[in-house]
């Protein structure tokens, strides 16, 4: 990063180690199960909140994560931030493993998060300026410098420091609070920002403004985003690649355009079909999903979607399809219908990538 985005002293960002080709974030087999108290005298059960999730985020890109509520999106975010211990899996930041070549403290500077609830994520007893300055101070910046940085960042997120620095969270609007939360995340000079439903609670007009702000900041600070949302339109607007989650598992993954134009997993198709479309020619014929998502406590065996899938065959209830390449562009899906020779009656004879070519 050659251009100085901010003129005040900032914390030195975690140095780029691996270069362009090294993904900023690699996640392998991330798993988190929560034990749930069962009825009296019955065995303990587990919620498989996140189950064997793998993906990577390249430097400078925006990866979206979509799925219904309860699919494990937010748990994934908290696992990545190390706010919650994972049961299994690897999280590698710029080629460095946390706890080995990268300390947890350093990771916290390299990766920041913006939460959904703008009010709950700000300490009601601290002014806006104090909230933003807290992080840099934790990492050794002097109070005066941290406050100056906080003010400058307020300007960067479109809030006049003179007006807002000494306000308390309850004195400003939801959109303004979310801008403060973004500034707070940026104060540690992170290279990766996880946005967990960061615009979901905002009014539509405010949401658009904040999305544009995020796009501007990304350019200005050279950021990488992991954008979690249930709103497909927003995800499409902001993301380069998208990851679809269902009951704690990744069911489809790929460049946003590819996934939108030729969704391979019936769940993705149903999600897109349920989305109000402005283009009448673009309507899919897939029936929308019936029923509620199954209880994440003890999910169904086999493909987790088979209980709601209109194309389910005996095979789907027996075995679990793994995430398989559909083309050379990185489009992947975990569905027997997309895996050549899987035994599903709708499975293609050959890989679709070759088909298209």
């Amino acid at each position: 990063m050659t251009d100085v985005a901010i003129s005040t002293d900032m914390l030195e960002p975690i140095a780029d180690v691996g270069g362009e080709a090294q993904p900023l974030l690699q996640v392998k087999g991330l798993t988190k199960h929560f034990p749930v108290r069962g009825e009296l005298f019955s065995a303990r059960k587990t919620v498989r909140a996140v189950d064997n999730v793998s993906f990577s985020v390249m430097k400078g890109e925006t990866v979206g994560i979509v799925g219904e509520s309860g699919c494990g999106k937010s748990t994934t975010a908290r696992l990545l931030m190390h706010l919650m211990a994972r049961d299994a899996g690897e999280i590698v930041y710029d080629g460095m493993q946390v706890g080995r070549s990268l300390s947890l403290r350093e990771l916290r500077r390299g990766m920041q998060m913006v939460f959904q609830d703008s009010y709950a994520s700000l300490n009601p007893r601290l002014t806006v300026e104090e909230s933003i300055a807290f992080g840099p101070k934790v990492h050794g910046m002097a109070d005066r410098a941290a406050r100056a940085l906080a003010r400058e960042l307020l300007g960067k997120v479109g809030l006049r420091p003179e007006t807002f620095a000494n306000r308390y969270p309850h004195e400003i609007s939801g959109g303004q609070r979310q801008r403060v939360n973004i500034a707070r995340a940026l104060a540690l000079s992170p290279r990766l920002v996880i946005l967990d439903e960061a615009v979901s609670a905002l009014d539509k007009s405010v949401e658009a403004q904040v999305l544009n702000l995020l796009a501007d900041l990304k350019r200005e600070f050279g950021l990488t985003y992991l954008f979690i949302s249930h709103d497909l339109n927003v995800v499409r607007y902001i993301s380069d690649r998208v990851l679809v989650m269902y009951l704690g598992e990744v069911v489809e993954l790929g460049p946003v355009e590819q996934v939108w134009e030729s969704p391979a997993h019936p769940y993705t198709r149903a999600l897109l079909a349920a989305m109000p479309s402005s283009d009448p020619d673009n309507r899919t014929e897939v029936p929308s999903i019936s029923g509620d998502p199954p209880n994440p406590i003890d999910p169904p065996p086999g493909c987790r979607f088979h209980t709601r899938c209109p194309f389910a065959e005996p095979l789907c209830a027996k075995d679990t399809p793994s995430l398989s390449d559909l083309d050379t562009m990185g489009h992947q899906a975990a569905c027997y219908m997309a895996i050549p020779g899987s035994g599903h009656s709708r499975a293609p004879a050959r890989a679709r990538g070759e088909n298209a070519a």
Partner: protein
Amino acid sequence: MSVLSDAALQAPPTAKARGYWATVGRRIARDKVSMACAFILALIFAAALLAPWLHLADPYQGSMIRRLRHIGTPNYPLGTDELGRDMLARLIYGGRLSLIVGILPVILAFVIGTSLGLVAGYVGGKLNTAIMRTVDVFYAFPSVLLAIAISGALGAGIVNSIVSLTIVFVPQITRVAESVTTGVRNMDFVEAARASGAGPFTIMRVHMLGNVLGPIFVYATGLISVSMILAAGLSFLGLGTKPPEPEWGLMLNTLRTAIYVNPWVAALPGAMIFAVSICFNLLSDGMRSAMDIRN
């Protein structure tokens, strides 16, 4: 390394916004009931503290010839007790022990209970279970019964009263502190603070204490009201202070025999307990609504 930008340095120093506690203080100051209570309490405290300099009669010196004088008797504005001691002096001196025995247990329980509750709420897990299950055991006793049981077992005395009342209040404050702490701990801003790399003690100091102490403090203030009644009640039963010390509960006890002779003098110490108790109760209510700043 870049230099502080002009914009950041030259931004006019904004008038420092009024802090949370300053706002709360202003709201309480505007509440007439709270201020009246604070005034009455200040008066009772000041009188008890400054008793030796108030030119009062000797609270221990009785006389068999002027027992149980009525209220309004010259030189004895509030009459005399069953041993002929000046009631005004005894009521004012009585405030010293009564207030100590009434308030000290709550202060002790506040310190102990808040620490336990903070730890249980912040650390969670097995430690939380251990602390909170122990607290549950004490909740299986009605508080009056527990106070009297412990006092009865330990024997009469001021220190024993304070100990038994502290034991009664610690579980109550622990429970409140734990639930408030757990509530704040699960707020996103604490997660955000952890995500910025802050250690548990920094988070506790900057983000938890300020949000947790207020509600616990309000609860404890209300508890003083109960404590005053219980402490005097222990003395009333003969489990607290020993004669001839002036103390409101004990005075009420010894004057019980006088209700047929001079009933209203006999009722005076109870009025003092009531006054202190209701003032702390109203003050606690006033603080609670003043701290609810969102509306």
